[in-house]
């Protein structure tokens, strides 16, 4: 009520229209400051036709390795629940990995220092480029042809120390296994002796 009294009807109409446009299917996804859409990998996989050929911005952890092919390279960026912290660092389980394959000029990748694996959390990288639902240049793969790349957050080494409780279990069970092995051998030996 108070709001209605303070703002003219025209402003409210424009606001309502703005909200409607923002919620319409064409604008259902977030965008970055430059106006490019920033869909997640799940959104791209679920609605590939909607973004096919669009210039998008995509951010994710550089995973695995960079595979260089001449002047270009393949990168894989994961935008999943482990983007900032992986399970070894105590991140809660948050489902499967998910991400996008990125085709990028090698010269743009020089700033990437760390790729994610068991021992490392990879650099978080933002790329902008054209999304292809089924790239004709790359055997129909779903990919992003990136024209710009920046490292948003550098990666780091992940420590995965041995849990003391596991060590105790390992020692106890090893003793148990040795006991079972000896019991089996001794019984077999006793039977052999009796047989003789």
């Amino acid at each position, binding site marked *: 009520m108070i709001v209605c009294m303070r703002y003219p009807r025209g402003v409210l109409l424009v606001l309502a229209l703005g909200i409607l446009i923002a919620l319409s299917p064409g604008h259902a996804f977030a965008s970055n400051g430059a106006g490019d859409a920033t869909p997640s990998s799940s959104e791209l996989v679920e609605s590939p036709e909607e973004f096919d050929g669009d210039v998008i911005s995509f951010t994710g952890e550089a995973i695995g390795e960079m595979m260089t092919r001449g002047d270009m390279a393949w990168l894989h960026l994961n935008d999943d629940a482990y983007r900032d912290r*992986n399970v070894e660092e105590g991140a809660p389980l948050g489902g499967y990995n998910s991400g996008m394959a990125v085709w990028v000029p090698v010269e743009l990748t020089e700033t990437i220092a760390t790729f994610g694996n068991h021992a490392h959390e990879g650099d978080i990288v933002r790329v902008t480029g054209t999304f292809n639902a089924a790239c004709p240049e790359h055997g*129909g793969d779903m990919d992003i042809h990136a024209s710009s790349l920046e490292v948003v957050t550098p990666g780091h080494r992940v420590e995965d120390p041995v849990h003391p409780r596991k060590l105790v279990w390992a020692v106890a069970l090893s003793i148990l296994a040795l006991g079972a092995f000896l019991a089996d051998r001794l019984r077999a030996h006793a039977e052999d002796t009796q047989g003789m």
Partner: protein
Amino acid sequence: MLLRPRREDHLVIGKYTGKIVIGIGLLMVVPLLTSIVFAEWDTAVDFVISISLCMAFGYGTQAVCRTDRDLGWSHGLVVASSSWLVATAIGAMPHWLSGHMGSYLDAMFDVMSGYTTTGLYLMQDLDHIAHGLNMWRHLLTFAGGQGIVVIALTFLFKGAVGAYTVYVGEGKDERLLPNVVQTARAIWLVSLVWLGFGAAALAIAGLALGQDPVRAVLHGLWVYMGGWSTGGFAPQSYNTFYYHSVLYEAITVVVFIAGSFNFALHWAVWTGGRREIRRNVETVSFAITLSLTVLIATFALAKAGVYSDAMVLFRKVFYQLASGHTTTGFSTIYSRAFVTQWGPIGMLATTIAMAIGASACSTAGGIKGIRIGVIFKAFVQDVRKSVSPENALISERYHHIRDITLSDGLVRSAMTITIAYVLLYALITLAGVLYGYDFADAVFEGVSAASNTGLSCGVTSPSMPEGMKALYILAMWLGRLEFMSVFALGGYAISIVRGRR
């Protein structure tokens, strides 16, 4: 009339189940060494715990179950099915200890999927797991492909007379050599020679694609294991899509098609019978059904206009269909792309391919080409009979290592197992639908699990209902062991409770 098993029956089953679990423990030494080499100490401790559990169970059971009695027919079947269950329960320990599994049931799901060479998984944050755990995932699917009983036969059974029944209980019935232990060793010989060539080819391809030498070798080995075993596990969550390479795809196709062939066919070629590849009923059946399903999917996808280029269309369709038909489960598209891009007809073609599966006595699952071939020949025979004079003698033959005349017994046996598979596919689909999944998704995923394929359209996930996970574990187990040994285990359990002394 059911007879209650005697103490001696329990002892003989316990003794041989124990031996197989010891075999699983010995297998875990490989990932343990891998973890040590890469200084993954926490993972190494996980494997020490798991190996100790296997040894404690295996030797403990052997110590308790001392008997000189050899395996009878029913014992062998019960040992085969029960050892797969125990091996799954204990083999899940490294997965669970890694912290990457939502529950112990999830860990058992992944291990059963590995042993049965299915390839579906519930492991979370796969892209950050240790090399040791990745080695275990691939090794268990490689071992499962040859048969975990085959491993035990090779190293631990030392020529037991009744060993053949355990071998049959694992869904294999070909004797490549007169002695079943020699047969098991021949299976390993074939697989290891292919391992040398396949893993080397993939490692070289990986190097050429820009992988560093260590990763190229590891990925080459693991992708080979996933392909040859028709398991479909891969070291990255992107599966074989990760490599973006037609060369890598071509090598994997050769490996998984070879893995899907009958070991008897491999042995025939190995011993000089190259013509067998062209004449064998299973290779002929595979070529025909693969071509038909590829045609259907190509037609549907061309109509939908998903892929703009004919070669691109063929490459994508052939790879997914060949992978599905051989029950491998390697994929170069996202799981959900089956729904969002391929649509119902593409999914149907893939489902048919997965349901048929590849060759009997191979690493693959599904109904199997030989049964499709036999049923088709029987159909042709009936049609010929119906159009021939009443007193005409009509016989049909098929070629599998040698020429075999079709008999009613052979047809009945093929039909029985085929009907059992179709029923399993129907029941697992019904379960999916009852849990609220779309029919097309439920059929696709259910058939994928029961035929031990592992292609997914997104139904399998860590968040799927626990009941579905348990049912998929059951379906993978039943599908891999081809029912009989699981039924024998059920009969054994019932006879303990209700049998007469």
